[in-house]
């Protein structure tokens, strides 16, 4: 408040005040106040003439010039020239009533040279006018005094004195005849025509006449300030809005980059070297030496020459490089080979290698006499040494020990080692000329080739079998001994060993039997030849339909049993039938109805299958023997015999299954056929059942649909459990005697009913209610629950979009290295330690695409721009997400 008072006081001073427009009034007044203060400090001010009040001006039809001191001066001139105006005393000065505060008049003079600042006067300046009036009044007072004085002196009436100066003034101003007419400004100007500055004045006047002249009454201060603020706000709003495209672009950008173009001040080596200055003694000396201009010059001149000499053609370099690379790779390969050979642990290999080496060495002897001589000397030396030391004559400790224990007790390896040693001794002690003899150790493989040769016949086979038999027997005999000491002597170990041995023994026995069997068969085959055809029928089975089958089987002749089994399902129906028949017959065996048949079959097989061991070995044995024989047949026998083989095959298979039946009754395939069996007519008018029929018959036993229904019911019961049935609990719900009469109380039954209804409804609501063949579990899987978002996350509006956004993996093991950076880039990329400046304005095309704007941003590495296209396509969901997140600020 204090300040305000002060201001008001200042307001009394002579000062020109004006505001340009009503809108800026407040600020301008402030300025003025300040200025006035300054002026006060200056303490001097020009005394200006009286100012015409605006109302008067309006009347005469001109407007005060708006600004400019020069104008003002002119105006002053003008007013001086034209007339003087005396205004009445203002009300407050007259003090007629006490309506106005009494304010002291702080008048003081301003110096002549004081120049008013360009503050144009205005209508607001009441104070000034007051000042002017004061002056006027003073003048007036003086004149009055003067007149009074004259009156007192001369005795004339005061009028005589009073009029004089006034008249002068009037006369000087007005000339010519004017009566009723109004005086226009032009009239006033006319007499000035021709004087200096007239044209200027005229022009100015013209301007003023053109300009509008209405000036409104000032608004109240509060309103004015409000308006000012409004304008200021609108203006700043408009200013801020220019940032919008820039901000939008930044918000939509998937990544913001800060501080990318920072120079970290790392210099190149060259730059550092250039700036190097010698400091130590040594460095200085060196610099002195190097810095001598002659040396430099010489180096400069020579350097070029040397460089020129250094020139090598590209081809040469390439050739050399290639050559070096080749040599290197050869060397490397050689090295690898050597390493590989070194790593081989096989003794035979090394032996062969050694021999080869010797061979080559011997061949070399023939080639080069010099070397041959050398070698001969070496050999001689070795021979002499051998004869002296007898190193290889079983004289070593090891050999002695072995011999002491007896060669028989040793294993093969040791024996061969001993033999080798002796052989070496023989070689070494032999005379030089006989050195080249080869050893004859590779005969052993001959046997194998015999085995495999197709030309061999039964004899060979029997031989092998016999051999195998013998060996097995031998092994069985050998196995008898059990170590009596050590861990194996423990009781449980002993037991285990015994068990093992038993098993092995059993196996061996089986193998023996099998050999015998096959041997026997072999003999049979050899003896009987075609006569086996009679046997093949196995009439015991009463196979009437077997005969027509046989030729059919012919082309399958080479099938082994396993193949045959598979063929069953996919082959011709006829074959199938046959097969079935076989099975039927074999399956017939265990049935009680045909006891006699079983008996006969058993008898038939009795001699062959004496001891059916474990099924697998038996199968394998048969398979082995059969297939083995087969290849023989393929080799040299005619197709008729093939048929026999097939028959035999069938027979063995049937026999096999019979055996199975005895060993284990729970073979499913046999069970399966059970139903069919019963319906199998023995009569001749048997017809082939259709496929559907077959299937129906096949699955006659198991009711799949029923099973499924039951299963579904179980699931339903589990997920929507059935309510418990109300049972009569004596005394529960009602008194017992009443209960006895009425049965179960209604409360309980009602509750049960309700629960039942509820369950039915729940069942109806299930997704699989109308799907007969489907069970849809509605049990909530808690583990799977963890992998789903509970609700759709915020920026997404549809489930599909969200799913799509997380569909593609972003990891380095699913994406090529090029795209990983773009996929994983964080929203803000900045560097620690780099100051981030606030945003700087730049023009952004608001409708431009993001990619373009990014390029203009130039904060990107060029590399990123290169991959912009691919990135764009990959990152689409991410960009969208960012846009959604950034563009719309979440609302509360």
């Amino acid at each position, binding site marked *: 408040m204090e300040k305000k008072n002060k201001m008001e006081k200042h307001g009394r001073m002579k000062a020109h005040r004006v505001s340009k427009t009503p809108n800026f009034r407040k600020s301008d007044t402030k300025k003025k106040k300040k200025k006035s203060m300054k002026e006060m400090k200056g303490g001097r001010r020009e005394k200006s003439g009286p100012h015409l009040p605006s109302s008067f001006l309006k009347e005469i039809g001109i407007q005060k010039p708006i600004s400019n001191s020069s104008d003002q001066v002119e105006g002053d001139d003008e007013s001086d020239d034209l007339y003087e105006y005396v205004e009445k005393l203002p009300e407050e000065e007259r003090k007629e009533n006490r309506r106005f505060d009494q304010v002291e008049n702080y008048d003081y003079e301003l110096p002549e040279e004081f120049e008013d600042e360009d503050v144009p006067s205005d209508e607001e300046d009441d104070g000034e006018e007051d000042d002017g009036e004061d002056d006027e009044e003073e003048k007036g007072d003086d004149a009055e005094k003067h007149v009074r004085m004259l009156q007192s002196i001369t005795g004339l009436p005061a009028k005589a004195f009073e009029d004089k100066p006034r008249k002068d003034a009037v006369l000087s101003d007005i000339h010519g005849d004017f009566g009723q007419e109004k005086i226009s400004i032009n009239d006033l100007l006319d007499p000035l025509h021709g004087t200096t500055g007239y044209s200027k004045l005229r022009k100015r006047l013209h301007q003023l006449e053109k300009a509008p002249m209405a000036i409104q009454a000032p608004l109240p201060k509060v309103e004015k300030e409000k308006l000012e603020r409004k304008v200021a*706000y609108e203006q*700043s709003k408009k200013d801020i809005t220019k940032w919008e495209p820039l901000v939008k672009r930044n918000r939509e950008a998937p990544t913001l980059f800060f501080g990318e173009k920072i120079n970290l001040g790392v210099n190149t080596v060259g730059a550092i070297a250039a700036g190097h200055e010698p400091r130590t003694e040594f460095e200085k000396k060196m610099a002195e030496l190097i810095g001598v201009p002659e040396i430099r010059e010489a180096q400069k001149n020579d350097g070029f020459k040397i460089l020129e000499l250094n020139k090598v053609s590209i081809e040469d370099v390439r050739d050399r490089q290639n050559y070096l690379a080749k040599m290197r790779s050869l060397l490397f390969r050689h090295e690898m080979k050597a390493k590989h050979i070194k790593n081989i642990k096989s003794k035979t290999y090394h032996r062969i290698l050694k021999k080869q080496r010797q061979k080559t060495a011997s061949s070399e002897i023939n080639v080069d006499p010099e070397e041959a001589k050398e070698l001969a000397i070496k050999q001689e030396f070795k021979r002499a040494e051998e004869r002296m030391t007898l190193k290889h004559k079983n004289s070593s400790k090891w050999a002695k020990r072995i011999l002491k224990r007896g060669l028989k007790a040793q294993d093969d390896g040791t024996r061969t080692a001993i033999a080798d040693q002796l052989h070496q001794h023989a070689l070494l002690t032999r005379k030089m000329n006989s050195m080249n003899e080869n050893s004859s150790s590779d005969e052993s493989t001959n046997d194998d080739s015999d085995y495999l040769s197709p030309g061999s016949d039964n004899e060979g086979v029997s031989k092998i079998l016999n051999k195998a038999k013998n060996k097995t027997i031998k092994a069985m005999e050998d196995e008898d001994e059990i170590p009596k000491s050590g861990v194996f002597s423990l009781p449980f170990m002993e037991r285990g060993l015994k068990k093992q041995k038993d098993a092995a023994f059993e196996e061996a026995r089986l193998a023996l039997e099998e050999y015998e069997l096959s041997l026997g068969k072999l003999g049979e085959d050899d003896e009987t030849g075609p006569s086996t055809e009679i046997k093949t029928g196995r009439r015991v089975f009463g196979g009437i339909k077997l005969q027509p089958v046989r030729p059919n089987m012919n082309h399958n002749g080479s099938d082994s049993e396993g193949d045959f089994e598979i063929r069953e399902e996919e082959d011709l129906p006829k074959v199938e039938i046959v097969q079935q028949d076989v099975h039927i017959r074999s399956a017939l065996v265990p049935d009680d109805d045909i006891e006699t048949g079983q008996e006969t079959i058993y008898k038939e097989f009795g001699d062959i299958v004496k001891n059916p061991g474990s099924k697998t070995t038996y199968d394998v044995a048969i398979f082995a023997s059969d297939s083995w024989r087969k290849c023989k047949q393929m080799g040299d026998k005619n197709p008729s015999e093939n048929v026999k083989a097939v028959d035999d095959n069938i027979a063995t298979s049937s026999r096999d299954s019979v055996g199975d039946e005895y060993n284990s009754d729970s073979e499913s395939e046999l069970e399966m056929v059970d139903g069919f069996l019963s319906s199998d007519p023995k009569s001749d008018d048997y017809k082939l059942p259709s496929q559907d029929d077959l299937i129906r018959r096949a699955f006659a036993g198991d009711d799949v649909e029923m099973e499924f229904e039951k299963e579904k019911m179980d699931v339903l019961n589990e997920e929507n459990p059935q309510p418990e049935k109300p049972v009569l609990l004596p005394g529960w719900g009602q008194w017992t005697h009443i209960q006895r009469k009425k049965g179960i109380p209604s409360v309980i039954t009602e509750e049960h009913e309700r629960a039942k209804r509820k369950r039915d409804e729940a069942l109806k609501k299930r997704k699989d209610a109308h799907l007969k063949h489907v069970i849809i579990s509605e049990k909530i899987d808690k583990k799977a629950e963890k992998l789903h978002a509970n609700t759709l996350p915020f920026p997404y509006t549809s489930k599909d979009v969200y799913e799509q*956004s997380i569909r593609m993996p*972003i*990891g380095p093991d699913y994406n090529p290295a090029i795209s990983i950076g773009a996929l994983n880039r964080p929203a803000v990329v900045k560097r620690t330690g780099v*100051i981030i400046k606030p945003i700087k304005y730049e023009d952004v095309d608001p409708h431009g695409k993001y990619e373009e704007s990014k390029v203009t941003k130039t904060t990107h590495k060029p590399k990123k721009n290169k991959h912009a296209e691919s990135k764009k396509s990959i990152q689409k969901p991410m960009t969208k997400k960012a846009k959604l997140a950034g563009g719309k600020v979440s609302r509360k």
Partner: protein
Amino acid sequence: MKVKVISRSTDDFTRERSQDLQKVFRNYDPNIRSQERAVEYTRALKAAKLEKIFARPFIGAMDGHIDAVSCMAKNPNHLNGIFSGSVDGDIRLWSLTSRKTVCHFPGHQGNVRGLSVSTDGETLVSCGTDSTVRLWTVPDYRNKSAGESAGNAVAPIAVYVWKHAFWDVDHQWGQNIFATVGAQVDIWDHDRSEPVNTFKWGNDTFISVRFNPGEPDLFATTSSDRSIILYDLRMSSPARKLIMKTRCNSLSWNPMEPMNFTAANEDTNCYSYDARKLDEPKCVHADHVSAVMDIDYSPTGREFVTGSYDRTVRIFNYNGDHSKEIYHTKRMQRVFCVKYTCDGSYVISGSDDTNLRLWKAKASEQLGILLPRERRKQEYLDAVKDRYKHLPEVRRIVRHRHLPKPIYKAANLRRTMIGAERKKDQRRRAHSAPGSMPVQPFRKRRIIREEE
């Protein structure tokens, strides 16, 4: 016959140096890898857990003041240095790397309420309740170690005495002008002993002032009549006044979005406004349980830090309605001032317990130089975590924060109160004529009016 042979160029399979990694060639056929989502989800989960494990935001405290720290200022031109003023009139310059005082600026007789540094980092302006504005030359402390200059005292280059106590000061971005607030808003020039301009709108004390860093002629003040006022220096007039239901203690302009600012309110919330549309805040940031005392934007403009009377510091996303991070220690008292460093990696808080505290802006960030591989790995983990952040398990781990008991309880209480209020409102609405109680969103409810 054409024989297909696997051939490989040696260049692809030889390393330049023995330390180089062997190139791994992968088949990116998605049919081969059908489990990638499961794998990435697991990685996200792991990343979330690791983030929790490594979340150690507190770096260290800077003690030395003998009274509460009332204000701070960061040097816009130099990272390693922060000015702090305390209630006893002490102003200090700290080195953040050594966490020691570099020099003192003695002279103020009372509470130093405002500190600000010119954009070139040469001049420090301070003001306080002793009605003086002091200008100081910032010493070149870059090459000095903290130890030798600990006793250094700097004399002010100018002391301007004015008529009223000052509450806050802020320096204009890029020019020689600063604004102080107290009983009125004064605009000062560095070289003038008296304000060059003065604004007054209403009769209440102004509390804080902030210049817009992007648009330097614009600034805003908050005052104790619960208003936020915008000014434009070009018009040399205030522009708009907004009156809220509770007063704002501080505000901060978004340095990357010149139209937006966020005000820290007494009612525990922060309100983000668009200066062009003051009729409603763009976003309400809630989580504090007591008055928010100070706010400062990260220079990236993507997050801001707030310090509260509830003894916590929180970090918010610029558009997040809840905080993403809360920092607290057992010994930290009421937080009066917070600042983000100019590189956006650290946060500094000054509190009642006379200490300044240095925090990491990202709690689990690894300090120091990262190798490119490490950086890529971290980026990948962050990306994966961000992708699966909506799944319950990941969200639970990421969101979980351990709170001090008083804050936990206060938050619960607040929730209950708000719930009760809402319920009451709902019931009132249910029992009044339809349409007689128009629904007003919370963010609008907090505003009383906008004055021209």
